[in-house]
């Protein structure tokens, strides 16, 4: 190192010390900055970060409450919950969904419907919710998933309560069902209320009493790690079970009525006339609601939709039918009440009726006519000409007003959502649609034909009001709301409409006598069910035309295709004097009310009044004229 120049030590030291001072100052400033930063994070923003740390650590996990049970009046279970193993996915915790699904396929069986349902939920459900991939895992499948649990990220094996309808299709139209919450419902519902829940009432009681059945979601505050895995429960707020519903429905009666209708399309309503309690609410054909709970397969759903018998339609609630001659049970009272018509004078029935200045013949169902008939005979024999004349005398608007008092063309107030209102035509109604009201339409309205429409539920409620001194109760499916835990039952009060104002209350008694004679006298159109009945029934048959018959042509049941045959109707209550049940029956394309509908009503009444089918022994079946 010979070439090292002589150093200027003094100058070097001065320079070095100056530089060292600079860096020491910088170091000092930077360390002060660190101190300030730490104080800022740990003192000033402490609360903010403390909250974030808690939010990181503690996640509230919803615990869905068990849905309330639905029972019939005797405690038979109509809707229940049972535990099933479900395989659920939290998509946010899955890195590669396609691979995961492939791997899961090795462990549990997944069919196309499961995958399609899952993808649908992926589109519709909010983030960080469990999505159902498959339910009803077998014990073996559940075990296979359980042992691989740590291997799969974002996969949860849960024991969930699943809604189940043990009686399958029985009463499906009033019971309804629950199914997966869909996109529209998701927008409507309060998401906090439905945290952790995947089902919602879609129809019937399940829909109408959703709030009562639902219960309150519980929460577990769970410490979770960064991978979303729960480590321990910090706090638990138990869910509150939904309330049980005890219905007025008698499942045995419901079953009996459904069987009585058999394969025919129709509806039966049986209700307690004093309380409005619905004992049977039948619409046939029925269908099994259970497949709907977790999403029905599209082809099964298409099959239901395309079924010509339209099982999905709730005929009892939404079926709108011409009442036919059953309307005479109510218009007969109008004959007594109305000022324009003198019910004390008999009418001659030649078998047809014409309006003045018209040659169009309105036929009576009985060729050759009923001869000279008074109101009693007209009701008992269901004379059409008598009611044609009544209708013309009253006019359509007065008829509408009178019938509206029985609840026609209005909601019955039943505790089910989406009921139909039916229709009472009027001049105004027709003109509002830009058409002219023809006098002929007034004539046919008198026998429950033409544009007039009623629902089976309306018919039953109106009939109940006849039985109940003119007081029409609101039909009630639910008898009591029962707290599952305490057993405390709350009975919603029975409600009714104001009594029908009559000029003379005896008129109602006269009319009830007439209706009783329909069933119990040998000229009565429903004598076929009355001749051997051990109790008194008041009733009225009806046959509603489906296809109009050309002038001069006769209706022949045999020659008419099944779908164009007349609808058979029957309204009744019993026992006369202390009525326990009012019944309305409609059998679509059933033919005659007397032969198709009345026997069903009789079976229903037997069950309610006697507890079993019964007849007076030793009474021979009379020859009965097929009415109307």
């Amino acid at each position, binding site marked *: 190192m010979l070439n090292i120049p002589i150093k200027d030590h003094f100058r*070097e030291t001065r320079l070095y010390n100056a530089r060292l001072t600079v860096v020491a100052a910088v170091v000092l400033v930077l360390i002060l*900055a660190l101190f300030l930063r*730490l104080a800022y994070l*740990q*003192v000033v923003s*402490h609360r903010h970060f403390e909250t974030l*740390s808690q939010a990181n650590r503690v996640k509230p996990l919803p615990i869905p409450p068990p849905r309330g049970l639905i029972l019939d009046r005797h405690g038979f279970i109509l809707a229940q919950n049972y535990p099933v193993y479900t395989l659920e996915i939290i998509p946010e915790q899955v890195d590669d969904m396609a691979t995961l699904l492939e791997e899961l396929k090795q462990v549990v069986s997944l069919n196309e419907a499961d995958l399609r349902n899952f993808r649908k939920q992926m589109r519709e459900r909010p983030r960080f919710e469990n999505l159902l991939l498959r339910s009803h895992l077998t014990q073996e499948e559940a075990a296979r998933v359980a042992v691989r649990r740590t291997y799969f990220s974002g996969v949860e094996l849960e024991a969930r309560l699943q809604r189940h309808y043990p009686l399958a299709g029985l009463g499906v139209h009033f019971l309804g069902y629950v199914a997966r919450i869909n996109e529209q419902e998701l927008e409507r519902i309060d998401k906090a209320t439905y945290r952790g829940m995947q089902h919602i009432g879609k129809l019937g009681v399940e829909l109408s009493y959703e709030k009562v059945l639902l219960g309150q979601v519980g929460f577990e505050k769970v410490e*979770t*790690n960064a991978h979303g895995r729960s480590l321990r429960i910090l706090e638990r707020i138990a869910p509150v079970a939904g309330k049980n519903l005890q219905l007025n429905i008698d499942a045995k009666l419901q079953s009996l009525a459904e069987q009585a209708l058999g394969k025919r399309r129709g509806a039966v309503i049986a209700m307690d006339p004093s309380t409005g309690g619905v004992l049977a609410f039948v619409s046939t054909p029925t269908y099994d609601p259970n497949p709907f709970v977790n999403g029905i397969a599209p082809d099964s759903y298409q099959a239901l939709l395309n079924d010509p018998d339209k099982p999905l339609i709730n005929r009892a609630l939404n079926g709108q039918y011409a009442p036919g001659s059953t309307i005479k049970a109510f218009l007969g009272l109008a004959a007594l009440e109305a000022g324009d018509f003198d019910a004390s004078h008999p009418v001659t029935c030649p078998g047809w009726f014409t309006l003045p200045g018209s040659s169009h013949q309105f036929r009576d169902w009985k060729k050759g006519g009923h001869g000279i008939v008074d109101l009693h005979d007209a009701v008992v024999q269901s004379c059409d000409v008598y009611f044609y004349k009544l209708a013309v005398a009253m006019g359509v608007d007065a008829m509408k007003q009178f019938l509206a008092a029985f609840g026609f063309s209005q909601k019955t107030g039943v505790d089910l959502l989406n009921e139909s209102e039916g229709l009472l035509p009027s001049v105004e109604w027709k003109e509002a649609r830009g058409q002219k009201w023809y006098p002929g339409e007034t004539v046919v309205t008198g026998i429950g034909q033409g544009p007039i429409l009623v629902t089976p539920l309306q018919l039953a409620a109106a009939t109940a009001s006849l039985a109940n001194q003119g007081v029409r109760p609101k039909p009630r499916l639910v008898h009591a709301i029962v707290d599952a835990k305490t057993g405390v039952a709350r009975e919603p009060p029975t409600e009714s409409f104001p009594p029908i104002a009559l000029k003379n209350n005896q008129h109602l008694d006269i009319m009830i006598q007439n209706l009783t004679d329909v069933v119990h006298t040998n000229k009565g159109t429903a004598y076929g069910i009355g001749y051997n009945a051990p109790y008194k029934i008041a009733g009225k048959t009806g046959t509603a035309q489906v296809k109009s018959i050309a002038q001069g042509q006769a209706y022949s049941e045999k020659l008419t295709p099944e779908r164009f045959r007349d609808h058979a109707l029957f309204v009744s209550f019993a026992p006369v004097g202390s009525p326990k049940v009012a019944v309305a029956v409609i059998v679509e394309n059933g033919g005659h009310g007397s032969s198709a509908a009345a026997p069903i009503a009789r079976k229903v009444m037997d069950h309610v009044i006697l507890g079993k089918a019964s007849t007076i022994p030793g009474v021979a079946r009379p020859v009965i004229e097929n009415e109307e």
Partner: protein
Amino acid sequence: MDWQRLHLDKTLLFALLGLAVISLFVVYSGSAKDVNATLGHFMRLLLGFTVLVVVAQLRPEIIERWAPYVFIGGMLLLIAVLAIGVIGKGAQRWLNLGLFRFQPSELMKLAVPMMLAWFLARANLPPTLPRLAAAFFMMAVPAFMIMKQPDLGTALLVFSAGVFVLFLAGMHWRIILLLLAAIVIAAPFAWNYLHDYQRQRILTMFNPEADPLGTGYHTIQAMIAVGSGGIYGKGWLNSSQAHLDYLPESSTDFIFAVFAEEFGLIGSLLLVAIYTLIVARSLLIAYLAKDTFTRLLAGSLSLTFFLYFFVNIGMVTGILPIVGIPLPVMSYGGTSIVTIMATFGILMSIQTHRKIAE
């Protein structure tokens, strides 16, 4: 005890031992009570202190004489690592020496300042422009090679160690300003040269909330850990951020977050104070050093150590971008503990041999 005769500096030694003891507790907590990891950390500390004691015995003249050879040896090893990396088609930072894996880049943290101090001490200070240029190449080439590994953190430290030497050597302010201007101009080009993840990290520093589950995640979780510690902390072993896996690298690069969460502001200030004490003592040694080589080396090593802990805590507290620089002595793993301890061995050697020589 005569520390001077043992060639140990009492202040530095006890401060480092204090850090070492604290680090064992924090590594235990940060590694989720992993006894093996804690034991491993203990063994590294033991090795580190052994290296410290051994290096402290070397006279500064020997260190000065070895400087060029250590530098050349380090460069050869870096080339070897790069070559193996190219052949192995992947990032490569270490050489597998059978018993343990050795990172040549760690060696360069010492070799570069040693080489520059040796080189600049061969002539009068301040250095002339050609000598500065030569010195610049001596630090830029290894730094560039380390960056290619890629190990941006170590590359920055190595480069910084060189810059500190140049600065202390009295590089003219005019040149410093010129270089700063050049950096500002070159920055956009350098930006293009960075890996995507490196760019993201720098962007994230300015706004971690922009991508809370992506690149901002580490910063946010670390800040949550530090901030939720409050003044008194959650207590040892109670770092929920680390134990529930929210905090990444909780026993290595982000160990300060665990410490701050468990021991609060009081603990963090104490820890920063210990580091400050070490830096202050090291700068004092640099100040007291008598010849050019030891002055430049001691100054550079002190400042590199400061940079080390400042960058790490700055990154954990969200004021600096995330670069993979561990907290010296505290962080678990890697060969860095040995290098750090060797640094203090050199500083102690400079301190103690000077006084004996007097």
